[in-house]
């Protein structure tokens, strides 16, 4: 007999049945005995207090704390940017907003969507900086350091927004152009060109006309700015100029305009 067989035989000893009738009669007897020695039924309030206390005692354990932390981290990374979206650059929660936005960007897999979101965040930050600086109560001699920092931050945010906007509009333009080229050439039997652009693993056997190859190169490698990207860039530039002139309302309007263009472009 192997150890495993031996243990399985031992486990069978648990199949010994206790007399159910005796268990039931003893149950009644025990209930009477404990009722006589002060046993009672608890009220719903007492039960609530006990549940709460037990929960608190259990929650002090490290495993529970770790589990709660992980859940909190996941929830914050998904919904945190909405939770802290109202935090302004002079708020203590602003750092939480930045972290949650970075976490949110980390969860987006589609690069175009990530760029769009990054643009929205950067433009949002720039708007908030303008709003804070537009407040006359904030502009005083004691806040000079903060004002200088905000000016610097605005510069950074505008640059980020411009970079993201140009990447976003270029990408969408490239994809559109490739489709357009494919549409134009498919009737002549050159559909492989479009396929190659989308999936490089597909071998191209059919020779391509020189003009088409040139077009393909231009669309995939050279950064050809679209009307939208030029416009968004111009508006962001105007927003920057308005900011430098301390025309914060004008800055806000321009930023909103740029956001609308990018929003329309993504549709």
């Amino acid at each position, binding site marked *: *007999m192997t*150890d495993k*067989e*031996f*243990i399985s*035989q*031992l*486990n*069978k*000893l*648990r*199949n*010994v*049945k*206790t*007399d159910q009738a*005796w*268990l039931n009669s*003893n*149950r009644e*007897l*025990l*209930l009477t*005995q*404990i*009722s006589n*020695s*002060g*046993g*009672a*039924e*608890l009220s719903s309030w*007492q*039960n609530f207090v*006990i*549940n709460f*206390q*037990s*929960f608190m*005692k*259990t929650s002090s*354990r490290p*495993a*529970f704390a770790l*589990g709660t932390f992980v859940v909190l981290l996941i929830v914050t990374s998904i919904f945190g940017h909405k939770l802290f979206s109202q935090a302004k650059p002079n708020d203590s929660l602003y750092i939480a907003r930045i972290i949650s936005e970075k976490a949110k960007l980390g969860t987006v897999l589609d690069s175009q969507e990530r760029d769009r979101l990054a643009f929205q965040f950067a433009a949002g930050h720039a708007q908030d900086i303008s709003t804070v600086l537009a407040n006359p109560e904030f502009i005083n001699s004691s806040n000079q350091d903060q004002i200088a920092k905000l000016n610097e931050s605005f510069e950074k945010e505008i640059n980020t927004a411009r970079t993201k906007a140009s990447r976003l509009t270029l990408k969408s333009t490239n994809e559109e152009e490739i489709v357009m080229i494919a549409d134009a050439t498919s009737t002549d039997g050159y559909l492989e060109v479009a396929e190659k652009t989308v999936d490089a693993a597909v071998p191209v056997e059919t020779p391509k006309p020189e003009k088409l190859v040139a077009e393909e190169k231009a669309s995939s490698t050279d950064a050809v700015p679209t009307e939208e990207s030029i416009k968004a860039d111009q508006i962001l530039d105007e927003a920057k100029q308005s900011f430098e002139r301390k025309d914060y309302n004008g800055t806000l309007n321009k930023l909103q305009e740029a956001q609308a263009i990018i929003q329309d472009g993504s549709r």
Partner: protein
Amino acid sequence: MSANLIKKFQTKKTLSQLKSHDKEAFIRVYDDQAADINRFVYYKIGNREDANDLTSVIFLKTWNHIQNNSLGEGKTLRALLYRIARNAIVDYYREKSVKRALSIDDEDNQIDVPDETIDLPEQMDQAADLELIKARLPLLKEEYREVIIMKFVNDLSLEEIADITDKKRGNVRVLLHRALNALKELVEQAKNKEKISNNENSNKSQI
């Protein structure tokens, strides 16, 4: 992890309810544990009637203990029940002065352990093995028998056994290993004796 936390929460909740004299909570504990405690006592003392009486006493003692004492952090209700059961068994032996008068093969209380998933010859072999184990279990040292019942019959964890017996987890593991080997040896010896007597009988009949 979550199952473990829920279990801990339930244990704490039940203990708090018992401290608040909640008889319903105690009856739930009884429903949950009575059969296991009764089996543990039965394998320890080998008498069905006495095991029933002791089980009843153990639950009443547990109720009184909880009302009058505070339980240490990390102590489970199951461990407390087994501790009280062990003490009750010691008292029982003391009163009866029959420390080794075990009769697990009590003819009035034959233990029936059917297993219908195996064929008849194998079932007969296994039934014979099981009978041998049951017959040899009372011959083991007290502490060996106890850990075997707790671990393999009543399915207690090593931590719980360590808590009940006031030993370290590692010591319980070693004890369990030795207990298994000792029981196995007893069973093998009985089997060999049986074989020899069978051979002798067949030789005699051939002559």
